[in-house]
């Protein structure tokens, strides 16, 4: 079960990479695109965006859609892994019988 421990360690590392900045860095962690926007207007104050997003969604709806995006992807990944595992299990069973 060496692989299992390695996998757990990797998961732990990913969680730490997310949590440590939250604990030690004193930032806003904003998710908007304001900063690059700010940098652009700083370099070129005259620049005006020439195209607006087609729809500006309320924050709540946006987070719902982000959750949906993650859920769809996670669903497909889970389905695929389940399918592959089931296929392999069936194959093993067949091998045992013969």
């Amino acid at each position: 079960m060496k692989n299992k421990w390695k996998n757990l360690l990797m998961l732990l590392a990913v969680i730490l990479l997310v949590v440590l900045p939250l604990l030690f860095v004193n930032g806003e962690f904003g998710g908007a695109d304001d900063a690059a926007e700010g940098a652009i207007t700083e370099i070129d104050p005259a620049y005006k965006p020439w195209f607006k997003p087609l729809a500006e969604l309320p924050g709540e709806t946006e987070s719902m859609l982000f959750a949906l995006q993650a859920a769809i992807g996670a669903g497909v990944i889970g389905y695929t892994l389940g399918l592959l595992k089931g296929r392999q299990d069936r194959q093993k069973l067949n091998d045992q019988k013969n």
Partner: protein
Amino acid sequence: MNKRSCWRFAWLVGIFAVYFLLNEPGTAEAMHIMEGFLPVGWAVFWWLAFLPFFFLGVRKLTRMTRDNPELKLLLGLSGAFTFVLSALKMPSVTGSSSHPTGTGLGAVMLGPLPMSVTGSIVLLFQALLLAHGGITTLGANAFSMAVAGPFAGYAAYKLVMKLGNREKLAVFCAAAVADLMTYVVTSIQLAVAFPSADGGVLASMVKFGGIFAVTQIPLAVSEGLLTVLLWNWLKAYSSQELSLLKRGARGGNTL
């Protein structure tokens, strides 16, 4: 743990300690280039640069799925992985959030070209439904995330495999490099469009690089680890498909 991995672990801790100490919090954050924030000329330029890869990718995909229908499963998996990861806005050491790209896995499994299709579909979803990125900037964003990232990741994979034939390390490098390269290219795209009055393109490059690329470093590491995790599961359950790719089956892991 044996002595060697102890040392390796100590090294990693040391490197990260220095990294966390050196990084000052800033307020900069962003994901992809926002709608309308590329001058028309550059927007068109990046669209034109992206489209050939898209069409080659479509051609590659149709051939691949026709010759090896069982690869559709892995194709769906790599697309779903990109879908999930690009929805995760993770906090980073610069005091801002950004998201991984998930394009390295697909590049390793299926080659970089198919990712130009799946990656741009994800970007289209985000541009249309989330006002994240944009239609006018889609060409530029797709070039960085769906073309430059996968190709760099693929190259990293090939290089590491050639140097040491260590598969997991190669997969980790592919994912991390693809992730980081996406944001390096984004910085370049903004820098050439908005050269600084004093210092020109290079000064702007440093500025945008500070916003995009530095934020991305720990996320690239996260993505590398997550990709290896998924790779391990795949190895355990589907050695059949993966070996199909390894042998470079028709339409398999080739350009």
